[in-house]
């Protein structure tokens, strides 16, 4: 076990954890980091700097709902003849820490329960005859590898601090970590260092109520939140708390610039849904064809009042810390952290993940226990409580019956075959539809509209069936994941509305990205996946060119081979597919039907049909 003070690197994460130790109402810390960065070691060592006997509960990824929120303790109930309650993990973490490793792989129902507990400070147990409220206030520490997918925004919103994702691998630091693990670098001062740190935190805790913040500073932080497009009010509160905790750690009573900067970095910037004004500066640094991250949610809905948010650079008065100055501070923080961070945090799912890096063990997870039903003992898992419930009323009469028959009863309970109830599980998630929309120049604009119509109808259908949808567009050099798998048809529609067209047709890249998306979805328990390709099938950009800039232009044959290989993989992975051909008859050389054939999927010709018909046909 490595102590908190011995861990090398990850200074931001450490800082965040210390702030959390000072003010647990900050809710928690999320640490996105690559495999092997020592994030989970750090998270576990957090217990070192907390007061003794603070609960530290680690949440296993495959936790079942009844273990999470609690339920009836069967053994004790049977032994005592009255209902005995077993507290769930959420309740056990009360007053302490709940730690989740691989937070992004946690299934969505578990996440909903954690979210609910965090906003309520309690768990409502309304299950199997139980109706209880268990207090559940905890700090959530979550670590995850962004290449495994993203954490649900609703959950992140309730967690105070999100450590900026650092892609740089400091080789030396890692070497030190390894040494630490091997015990080669045993630090004899560990104990003293830990003691000192705990003393510091204790002092800061006492200092915290004395820390004050000016109205201007508060306004400044909130203004920054507005111009970064941060959703909701929770972040405002967290930012203020973080700044104050930082001041308390430094044994100050006033919040200073460094505190504000830290609050910006840990709380506000990671939640940004758009680039702050002035946009030009930041935008200019980006390659011209990479526009604003397209899946920043809501950006068009909440236009900040520009007058109030724009830093006033004309007048440079000698004021202490006006909101405007804090705004400038924000720009500074943003410049050092952005655009990398915005891209990393909100679009991390876009990055190529190392295939099969982890998560395989999760595949045997079961669905959600929904209800129980009469059934054969061997045909599934026995739902014990419902079985008991159905047997209970007949105990008196059965015992008497047995007595008559055999003269005595030697079991406490007489359970007959017809009492047996079997657990019914619901397949956690319906189908995932991955829409791959060809937005290359060869798609004439009117055809695009038609394609959008078909997709919209498919989306509507997915909406009714509560399926998940994901949207990939491909044009220019590379395919782009516009929408990671989500149930939000609204978002998919919005992305589709603003989809630009033009450029080459990187069909191979789209298939590759689709496969990555499918792989991730599978680790999350989605079993049925369908690719819906809306294209003319004329891929002309090779995947190779993406990784090797200097490679000679791929020949037509090479491109075709790539596509063929990928299509075969799609088929082998058991992914169903539909190709919707958008090409005019007289131009077609039959590429799209060929593609459908390779994918083992179905083929539809768009120009002949109405959007609605295609949608229906594709889904039938």
């Amino acid at each position, binding site marked *: 076990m490595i102590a908190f003070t011995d861990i090398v690197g990850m200074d931001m994460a450490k800082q965040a954890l210390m702030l959390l130790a000072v003010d647990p109402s900050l809710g928690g810390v999320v640490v996105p980091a690559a495999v092997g960065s020592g994030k989970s070691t750090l998270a576990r060592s957090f217990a070192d700097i907390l007061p003794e006997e603070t609960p530290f509960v680690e949440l296993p990824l495959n936790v079942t709902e009844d273990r999470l929120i609690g339920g009836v303790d069967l053994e004790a109930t049977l032994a005592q003849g009255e209902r005995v309650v077993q507290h769930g993990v959420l309740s056990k973490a009360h007053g302490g820490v709940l730690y989740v490793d691989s937070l992004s792989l946690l299934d969505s129902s578990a996440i909903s329960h954690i979210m609910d507990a965090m906003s309520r400070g309690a768990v409502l147990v309304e299950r199997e005859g139980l*109706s209880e*409220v268990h207090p559940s206030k905890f700090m959530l520490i979550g670590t995850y590898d962004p290449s495994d997918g993203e954490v649900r925004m*609703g959950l992140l919103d309730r967690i105070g601090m999100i450590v900026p994702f650092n892609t740089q691998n400091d080789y030396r630091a890692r070497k030190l970590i390894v040494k630490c693990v091997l015990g080669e670098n045993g630090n004899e001062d560990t104990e003293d260092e830990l003691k000192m740190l705990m003393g510091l935190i204790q002092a800061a805790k006492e200092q915290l109520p004395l820390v004050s913040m000016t109205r201007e500073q508060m306004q400044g932080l*909130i203004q920054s939140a507005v111009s970064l497009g941060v959703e909701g*009010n929770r972040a405002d509160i967290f930012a203020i708390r973080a700044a104050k905790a930082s001041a308390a750690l430094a044994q100050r009573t006033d919040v200073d610039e460094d505190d504000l900067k830290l609050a910006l970095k840990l709380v506000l910037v990671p939640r940004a849904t758009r680039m702050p004004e002035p946009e030009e500066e930041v935008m200019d640094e980006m390659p011209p064809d990479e526009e604003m991250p397209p899946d920043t*949610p809501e950006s068009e809905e909440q236009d900040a009042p520009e007058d109030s948010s724009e830093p006033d650079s004309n007048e440079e008065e000698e004021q202490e810390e006006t909101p405007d100055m804090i705004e400038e501070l924000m720009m500074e923080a943003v410049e050092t952290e952005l655009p990398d961070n915005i891209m990393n945090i909100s679009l991390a799912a876009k990055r190529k993940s190392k295939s099969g890096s982890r998560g395989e063990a999760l595949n045997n997870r079961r669905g959600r226990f929904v209800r129980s039903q009469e059934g054969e003992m061997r045909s599934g898992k026995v739902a014990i409580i419902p079985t008991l419930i159905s047997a209970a009323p007949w105990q008196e009469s059965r015992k008497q019956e047995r007595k008559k028959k055999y003269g005595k009863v030697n079991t406490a309970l007489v359970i007959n075959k017809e009492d047996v109830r079997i657990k019914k599980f619901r397949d956690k998630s319906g189908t995932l539809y991955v829409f791959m929309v060809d937005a290359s120049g060869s798609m004439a604009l009117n055809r695009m509209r038609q394609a959008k119509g078909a997709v919209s109808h498919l989306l509507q259908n997915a909406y*009714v069936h509560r399926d998940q949808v994901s949207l990939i567009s491909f044009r220019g050099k590379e395919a782009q994941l516009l929408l990671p798998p989500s149930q939000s048809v609204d978002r998919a529609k919005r992305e589709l509305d603003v989809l630009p067209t033009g450029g080459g047709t990187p069909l191979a890249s789209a298939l590759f990205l689709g496969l990555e998306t499918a792989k991730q979805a599978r680790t999350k328990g989605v079993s049925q996946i369908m690719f819906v390709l809306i294209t003319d099938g004329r891929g002309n950009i090779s995947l190779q060119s993406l990784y090797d800039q200097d490679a000679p232009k791929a020949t037509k044959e090479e491109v075709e081979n790539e596509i063929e290989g990928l299509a075969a993989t799609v088929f082998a992975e058991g992914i169903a597919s539909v190709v919707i051909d958008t090409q005019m008859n007289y131009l077609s050389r039959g590429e799209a039907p060929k593609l459908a054939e390779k994918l083992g999927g179905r083929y539809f010709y768009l120009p002949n049909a109405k959007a609605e018909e295609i949608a229906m046909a594709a889904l039938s």
Partner: protein
Amino acid sequence: MTQTASAANNTASTKAKEGSVAKKASGPKKARTKKKQGQAYPFTAIVGQEEMKLSLILNIIDPRIGGVLVMGHRGTGKSTTVRALAEVLPMIERVKDDVYNRNVNEYIEAEKPQKGRKTLAPEDLTIEDIPVPVVDLPLGATEDRVCGTIDIEQALTSGVKAFEPGLLAQSNRGFLYIDEVNLLDDHLVDVLLDVAASGRNVVEREGISIRHPARFVLVGSGNPEEGELRPQLLDRFGLHARIITITDVAKRVDIVKRRHEYDEDPQAFLKKWTREQKKLQKKILGAKDLLPEVTMSDEVLTDVAKLCMQLGIDGHRGELTITRTAHAFAAFSGDKEVTMDHVRAIAGLALRHRLRKDPLETMDPGEKIERELAKVLGEVEEV
């Protein structure tokens, strides 16, 4: 033959004594009434989000409006507001300790004489005042707790087959709140749809057959980005309020400051807001009293019908909701006559989610309603 709700009290047990109905209803369940999770944040101290607040208030004034769906950005106070609602709700009368919150008449009606039992007279019953119940339905709830099921404790210990009422029973005549309603499991949605349509909960399981009233105002909230609502459920909600992040910095500073004040010393904060709370409560009660006197002229009614027709809204639920809501809004404004101004103020709330879904439509539903309304009122030509 289906038993009435009395089965809950007067169970299948032969041991149940006659005439002890009212007492038995409390039974061992009394200890189970939910502990209060501390005082909620005061409703009146919530900054902005007027649309959501108004929808909730109108539903208190007239529960027949059919509930509210609040959808919007995360962290904007959706569930805080709904949970704050309990403190401004009026009191209702029920038969003492009745698990279904029935009033005297409902109770007597339901407990109609069965073989060998006397008809109950109002004098036989004790009455109590309780605040309108607000029941939280958590996502992880199982169907048996929602609908009610056999009481396993009694079954195991005394072999008595007693019905243990669920959340639907608790929420009768009150509010049923589901946070993250868009993530609710399909089988629970089905149950809710059934019950909401009929106003009764029918339980046929584990050898019990019970029906009891379950009329509640359904309140749901959620973030549309996390998933959407099934159309049938969407249609069940009377009103649809939308909520977005406030971008006014001064208001946000206020929100933060109030929240901080509340967290520091909830009692003092609540005290500070008592007057506002009382004022609102009084206004709501006044509106409830005024509601039966509120009328709507045929002209206004015609215009409402025209509006719904123009918008191509299927069925009559749209018209019915908009009319009821307009009445409640008029009462809340202290007016006895519904005008088109009242209608205009609430049209978006009542109709927004009833417009036919057009995938290619980019116009905001609120704007569309506003535009059609202007057409109906003949205001468009002037512009």
